[in-house]
């Protein structure tokens, strides 16, 4: 019940295309759903996050879509750029402890 399942494991997208990464969870007590972006040699950094009281959050080219009834959330990267090539992790947590449960990661490659 603590797992966060992430797919796909890897993704290749053409420049200008839309990248979509999906995550599913089981614990209905989770109330914070962030996405982290990690470049080679660096630690993960927060990209965008959502709480379950909204169904969508957009920041620039990045959008989180949240489906509470299906217990799923996804990251959409519009107009994908080669600079977006990185590993993306979804995560979830409950309450104020900040104990994030991470997905297994998606390696995104955006081809020029």
């Amino acid at each position, binding site marked *: 019940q603590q797992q966060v399942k992430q797919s796909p494991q890897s993704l290749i997208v053409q420049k200008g295309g839309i990248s979509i990464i999906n995550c599913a969870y089981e614990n209905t007590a989770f109330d914070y759903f962030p996405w982290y972006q990690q470049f080679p040699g660096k*630690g993960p950094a927060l990209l965008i*996050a959502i709480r379950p009281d909204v169904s969508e959050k957009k920041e620039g080219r990045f959008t989180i879509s949240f489906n509470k009834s299906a217990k799923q959330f996804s990251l959409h990267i519009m107009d994908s750029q080669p600079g977006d090539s990185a590993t993306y992790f979804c995560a979830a947590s409950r309450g104020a402890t*900040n104990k994030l449960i991470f997905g297994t990661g998606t390696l995104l490659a955006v081809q020029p």
Partner: protein
Amino acid sequence: DVKVTQSSRYLVKRTGEKVFLECVQDMDHENMFWYRQDPGLGLRLIYFSYDVKMKEKGDIPEGYSVSREKKERFSLILESASTNQTSMYLCASSRLVPPLHFGNGTRLTVT
């Protein structure tokens, strides 16, 4: 900008050695975390600390211990390193609310 500094970028140790991984944050954050990152497994929480001298086990604490004697410093200790502890170790810190701020990691190889 928050800075989380991990003392070593690469570390090579022998089986059975006692290993210390050090992490320092400069933002007076209450929470500190140690995660382990492995391909196909994502990031898994080893231990976290919500205050000086306070700690809680994460999902994979076996074979590890931690120490937090000062607010800014959180150490991960491998009491007797084993080859299955070869991995990337990530330290993070946060206030009582998100987000987590990560260091750049220590890649540990146990031979």
